[in-house]
């Protein structure tokens, strides 16, 4: 049983990476070489043309900027709102806390498509179509339930003595929160922020619907809707480059912060 598991782990590690590696390789091939059957393992004449075309003929630099701004601001907003609410929740009577937590988790129960059309109406009425804030606000909200739940658990573990000491020093609730609790919780906040960032970066359905101007698109939508220059040909080299370009920041993020991210994901299990 153990041996099987270990083999599987090695196999899965390879399988997890192989498709991405294949795209890196493919993105460096010329259209001519991509049309070869069977495909070559390494690019014969490696070229950066696909990446060049991505950033010049297509608005990739723009997509990157949009995605980054939207993901960063929405995760900041989410963490701010979530930490405030979680702190309030952590210091509330257990019975009320239970009800609120349960209702929050119920929110995660509704598939995003339930929200799509009315949200679109709202965004449109607010004049935020093709505007980054048309996505920043929804994304922050969508990440709130899990973030609040996670942070409430974390804050709940901070001993009361610290707040008592702060009260003695004459700090108000808000000041206690900002000057003491928040810095203490930096790791948890970072984790929450990161997960929210990843979610916002990866989101597709709302981004597809709310952003139809080229200049407003996020990178996820941009890559998924890349179209060819010729009627029946699909630009695989370009797509591969797009996949690599859009995945690269995330993989970087995960590499640097993998411990945090794992901790965030398995938080529930650690109870």
């Amino acid at each position: 049983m153990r041996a099987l598991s270990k083999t599987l782990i090695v196999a899965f590690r390879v399988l997890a990476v192989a498709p991405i590696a294949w795209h890196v390789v493919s993105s460096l091939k010329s259209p001519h070489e991509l049309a070869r059957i069977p495909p070559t393992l390494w690019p014969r004449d490696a070229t950066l043309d696909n990446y060049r075309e991505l950033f010049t003929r297509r608005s990739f630099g723009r997509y990157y900027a949009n995605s980054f701004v939207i993901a960063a601001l929405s995760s900041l907003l989410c963490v701010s709102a979530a930490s405030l609410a979680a702190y309030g929740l952590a210091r509330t009577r257990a019975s009320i806390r239970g009800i609120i937590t349960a209702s929050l988790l119920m929110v995660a129960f509704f598939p995003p498509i339930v929200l799509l059309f009315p949200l679109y109406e709202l965004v449109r009425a607010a004049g935020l179509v093709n505007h980054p804030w048309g996505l920043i606000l929804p994304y922050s909200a969508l990440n709130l339930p899990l973030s609040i739940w996670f942070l409430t658990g974390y804050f709940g573990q901070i001993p009361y003595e610290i707040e008592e000491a702060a009260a003695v020093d004459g700090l108000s609730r808000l000041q206690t929160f900002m000057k003491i609790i928040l810095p203490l919780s930096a790791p948890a906040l970072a984790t929450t922020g990161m997960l929210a960032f990843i979610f916002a970066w990866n989101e597709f359905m709302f981004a597809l619907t709310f952003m139809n101007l080229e200049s407003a698109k996020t990178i996820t939508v941009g890559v998924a809707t890349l179209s060819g220059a010729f009627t029946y040909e699909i630009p695989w080299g370009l797509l591969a480059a797009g996949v690599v370009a859009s995945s690269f920041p995330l993989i970087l993020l995960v590499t640097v912060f993998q411990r945090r991210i794992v901790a965030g994901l398995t938080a529930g299990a650690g109870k």
Partner: protein
Amino acid sequence: MRNPNQKRPGRGLEALFYLPAAVLLVLVVVYPIVRTTFFSFTRTTLDTGFQSEFVGVQNYLRLVSDSRFHTTLWVTTSFTVISVALEFALGLLLALGADSFVRGRGLIRAFFLAPWTLPTAIIAVLWAWIFNDQYGVLNALLTKAHIVQTPIAWLATPTSAMASIIIADVWKTTPFVFLVLLAGIQNVPRELYEAVEIDGGGAWAKFRHVTWPFLLPFVFISLVFRLIQSFAIFDLVYVMTGGGPGGATETVSVYAYQTYMRYLDIGYASAQVGAVVIILAVTTYVLYRLLLRRYARLV
């Protein structure tokens, strides 16, 4: 130690702590849910100039006789059941033998996690290229190893197209399931395993009497979570197959999206979405009775 906060002045401020989150949630979640429910009981289409006419349960009745809706339900259910079963089976197997993982180096762990962190829409593009019948690497490998004679048109036939999206989904989510189950396993007190050993039990006995009962709550929560996510799947199908070939991979969300954006039939799409929520609610409840009750019995 009693919560000092309950005695402090300025209790009213507490409400302010909730305010930002509450505002966001009401605007982005509560209001849309209510409005979608409202729409589902109206006729709101291009024909009515997008004004809403109340029609009671007519949309829901229409669902009952809509063969395309039945097909999408079937597709979505098969996809969900097969995908989630595979993910959990693989995740469990991986978690059971995963001590080495915990000690693994960061880079390797990161790559392991990579599938889960990538956007689903990008994963769809990624696998579409691998599954391409002419230039895809999968067919190249299969024909080279003589497993198949002619290249498989993965995305062009119903069964293989379904297999393709399942493979892509399992690839993406197994790491997540694995991590959750692993965390659960690592929380099992060692003494319980020792107790089984003393009684002469082997690996299977340990699993059945210790690991599994302990895992059950985590399994339940992540199972429900994954089932809901899977049932609602949109990105993967929309980008990889568009619901094709001929609707063979069309999931409920894709049909609902089309009904909104292409047919401009807002009321009907809202009913489709409402039906999905009802189905999910019932399923969760059934699972709760089946799984958690059992757990309560065992412990």
